[in-house]
C-alpha cells in the first residue's frame, strides 16, 4: 500500500465561492473532509465600536451595512431597538411601510441565496435569472430611498420619506409575479437532477444540534424547528398578518433551499396583506430633536432577519451616543455548525454547505 497522508486546504479567504472573506480551513483525506475550521474576521469593520462614536441617528447607515443583501432588515432592527430605548410610538403607516420593505428585503436576500447556491454548484445560468428578478425589488428600494443595495430608509420613529407615487402598484406587480418566478427557479434550479443529487442528504443539520448552537432563521426551520420571531415574539405589527412557516424535514441542503423558496412566497403573502391594509397618515412619530436616552437604560431588541434572529443590544450613558452596541449576528452563529455538517462529506459538499448556510460576512464579522 502507498503511504497516504492527510492534508489541509484553505478554502478562502480569496476564493470564488465563500461569499466574501470567509476562510474555511479543511483537513482532507483525499476528497473526504475530516474536519473544517472556520476562521472569521476578514471583513471586520468594528461596527460596534463605531456606534460608540456616532449619535443614535448617525448609526443607521452603518446598520444597513451589516446585512447588505437585505439592508432594510438590520436598519429596522436597529431603529426599533432605539425606539424601545426611548419609548417612541411609531405611526401606523410607517409600520406598514416597514413591513413591506422588510419582507421585500427578505425576498431579495432569498433570491440571491438561490442564485448563489446555483452558481456555487456550477450552474452559472441560475444566478442570472435570480438576479434579474431581484433587480425589480432593488428598483423598488431605489424608488423609496434612492439607494438600491444599502438603503437607509428607516428612521428612529418612522421612515425617512413617504412612499412615492406608483410604489404600491409596482409592489403589487412584483408580488403577483412571485409564484411565476419561483416556478422558474424550480424548473431551472431545484428541479435539476444533478442539483438534487448534490443537495439531498448533504450537510444534515440535526434539530438538536441546531438548537444547541443557536442556529436561527431558515436554517433552523429547514431542520424542522418551527421558530420564527415574527410568530414567536412578534415585533412591530407582525401579529396582524397571516402567514405560514415553511418547515423542512431532513435538515439537508435541499431543505434549506426549498424552505427559502417557500419563504419567498410567504413573504409575498405578508407584503400583499400590508399593501392592502396600509392606512394614510403620518410617517414619523414624535421623536425628540436630540436623542438622549436616560442614563443606564439598556435594551435588547431582536427581529427575524433574512438570515435568522438579528438582535441589537443598546446601553445608554445619558449622552447622545450609545455607550455600547452589540449585534447578535445570525450569520456568525449559523456558520459555527459548518464543521459539524461538513465532516465526512466530500470537498464539494463544503461549498454546498457554505452556500446553504447563507452567511453574509459583513454581518458575521461586523
Amino acid at each position, binding site marked *: 500500500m502507498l503511504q497516504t497522508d492527510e492534508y489541509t486546504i484553505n478554502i478562502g479567504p480569496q476564493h470564488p465561492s465563500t461569499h466574501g472573506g470567509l476562510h474555511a480551513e479543511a483537513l482532507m483525506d483525499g476528497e473526504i473532509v475530516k474536519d473544517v475550521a472556520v476562521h472569521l474576521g476578514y471583513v471586520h469593520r468594528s461596527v460596534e465600536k463605531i456606534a460608540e462614536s456616532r449619535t443614535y441617528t448617525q448609526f443607521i447607515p452603518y446598520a444597513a451595512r451589516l446585512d447588505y443583501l437585505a439592508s432594510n432588515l438590520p436598519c429596522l432592527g436597529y431603529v426599533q431597538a432605539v425606539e424601545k430605548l426611548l419609548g417612541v410610538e411609531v405611526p401606523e403607516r410607517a409600520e406598514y411601510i416597514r413591513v413591506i420593505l422588510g419582507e421585500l428585503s427578505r425576498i431579495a436576500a432569498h433570491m440571491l441565496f438561490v442564485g448563489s447556491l446555483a452558481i456555487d*454548484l*456550477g450552474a452559472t445560468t441560475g444566478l442570472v435569472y435570480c438576479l434579474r428578478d431581484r433587480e425589480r425589488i432593488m428598483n423598488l428600494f431605489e424608488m423609496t430611498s434612492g439607494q438600491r443595495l444599502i438603503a437607509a430608509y428607516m428612521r428612529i420613529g418612522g421612515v425617512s420619506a413617504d412612499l412615492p407615487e406608483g410604489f404600491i402598484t409596482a409592489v403589487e406587480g412584483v408580488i403577483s409575479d412571485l409564484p411565476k418566478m419561483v416556478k422558474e427557479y424550480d424548473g431551472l434550479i431545484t428541479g435539476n437532477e444533478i442539483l438534487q*443529487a448534490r443537495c439531498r442528504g448533504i450537510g444534515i443539520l440535526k434539530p438538536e444540534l441546531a438548537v444547541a448552537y443557536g442556529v436561527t432563521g431558515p436554517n433552523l426551520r429547514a431542520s424542522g424547528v418551527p421558530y420564527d420571531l415574527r410568530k414567536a415574539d412578534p415585533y412591530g405589527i407582525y401579529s396582524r398578518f397571516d402567514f405560514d412557516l415553511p418547515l423542512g424535514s431532513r435538515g439537508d441542503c435541499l431543505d434549506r433551499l426549498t424552505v427559502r423558496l417557500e419563504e419567498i412566497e410567504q413573504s409575498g403573502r405578508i407584503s400583499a396583506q400590508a399593501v392592502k391594509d396600509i392606512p394614510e397618515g403620518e410617517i414619523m412619530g414624535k421623536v425628540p430633536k436630540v436623542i438622549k436616552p436616560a442614563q443606564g437604560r439598556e435594551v435588547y431588541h431582536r427581529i427575524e432577519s433574512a438570515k435568522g434572529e438579528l438582535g441589537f443590544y443598546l446601553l445608554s450613558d445619558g449622552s447622545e451616543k450609545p455607550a455600547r452596541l452589540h449585534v447578535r449576528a445570525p450569520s456568525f452563529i449559523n456558520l459555527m455548525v459548518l464543521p459539524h455538517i461538513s465532516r465526512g462529506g466530500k470537498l464539494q459538499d463544503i461549498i454546498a454547505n457554505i452556500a446553504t448556510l447563507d452567511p453574509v460576512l459583513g454581518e458575521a464579522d461586523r
Partner: protein
Amino acid sequence: MERLILDIAHLLVSWLTGRGMAPVWADLLLLLLQWGTVLAIVTLNVLILIWLERKVSGFIQERLGPNRLGPFGVFQTIADTLKLLTKEDIIPTQTDRWIFKTAPMFFIIVAVMLYAVIPMGQDMAIVDLSAGLLFFISVGALSTICILMAGWGSNNKWSLLGAMRSVAQMISYEIPLAFSLLGVVMITGTLNLGEIVKAQDKVWFFVLQPLAFLTYFIAATAELNRGPFDMPEAEQELTAGAYTEYTGMRWALFFLAEYTNLVAVSALMATVFFGGWQGPLLPSWIWIIIKTYLIMLVFMWLKWTFPRIRMDHLMSFSWKVLIPISLINIVITGIGIKFIQGMGW
C-alpha cells in the same frame, strides 16, 4: 466547389514538380502546408468559438454578451488574446519548472494531432490511417497526462486535486467512449474514418446505434472536461483546478487546447454518428463544418444549463451506468449483425 480544396492541392503539387522539384519533396511540402492550414484553422476557429460561446451563454442568460468591439463584438476575443499575450509570464518558484512549462505545449500538440485523421470532406483526411479511430482514441487519452503534468508541476494543492480528479475522470470515461464506438466498428468492419463515413450513405449511425450515441455523447462531454463534468477546473470549489498557477499565454494555451479538443470530438461525433461529410447540395467540407458546429452548440447549451456533478457521483455513473450500457450495446449489435447475416439481407 466540391473538389475546390483538393484541386488547389493538386495544382500546387503539379506546379512544384513541374518546376523540377522531386515528388517526395513536393508531397512533404504539401503535408507541411496542410498542417499549417490545420493550425491556422484551429486557432481562428477557437477565436470564433470563444466569441460564440459567450454569445450563446449570453443568450441563455438573457444578456447581450460581448457587443463593443466590432459588429456583435466579434473582435472581443482578439482583444482578449492580445491582453493574454502581453501579460507577465509568472512561474511560481516552487514549481517543477520543466514540467510546468511543457504541460501546456504538450496539451496543445496532442489536441492538434487529433485532426490528422478526421475526414474534413470527401477524401480530405490529412492522413488516411486504416486505424484512424484507434489513433483518435489513443491520442485523445494523452491529454490526461498533460493535465496531470500541469497539476503536479504547479506544486499547488488545488492544482493537484484538480489533476487527480481529471485523471480519475478521464480514465473512467475513456472506456465507455471506446466501447461506444465499437458498435459502429462492428457494423462497418473498419477503423478507417473515411470508410465509416462512406458506410453511412443510406442511414446515419445514430439511428442504428442510439445507445452508443448517447454513451459517446456523455463520455465525450466528460473527456472534454466541459460542464457538467468540468471537474479539473471546477471553478467554484478548486478555484481553477489544474490551471490555477498558470497565467497569460500559458493559461491561454490550455484554453486553446480545450476548445481544439471540443472541435475535434464534435467532428468525430459528426463523422461517426451523423454521416460525416455526407449531405445534399452543399460541398462535403461545408457539411462537416455545419454538423460540427451544431454539435458544439449542444455542448454549450449543456454547459450553461447544468450544475456540476459531484466527483463520486461522476465515477459511479461511469462504472455503474455507462460501461454496462456500452457493453449491452456491443452485445445487441453483435446479435443484430448475426441476425441480419442469418436472414441473408
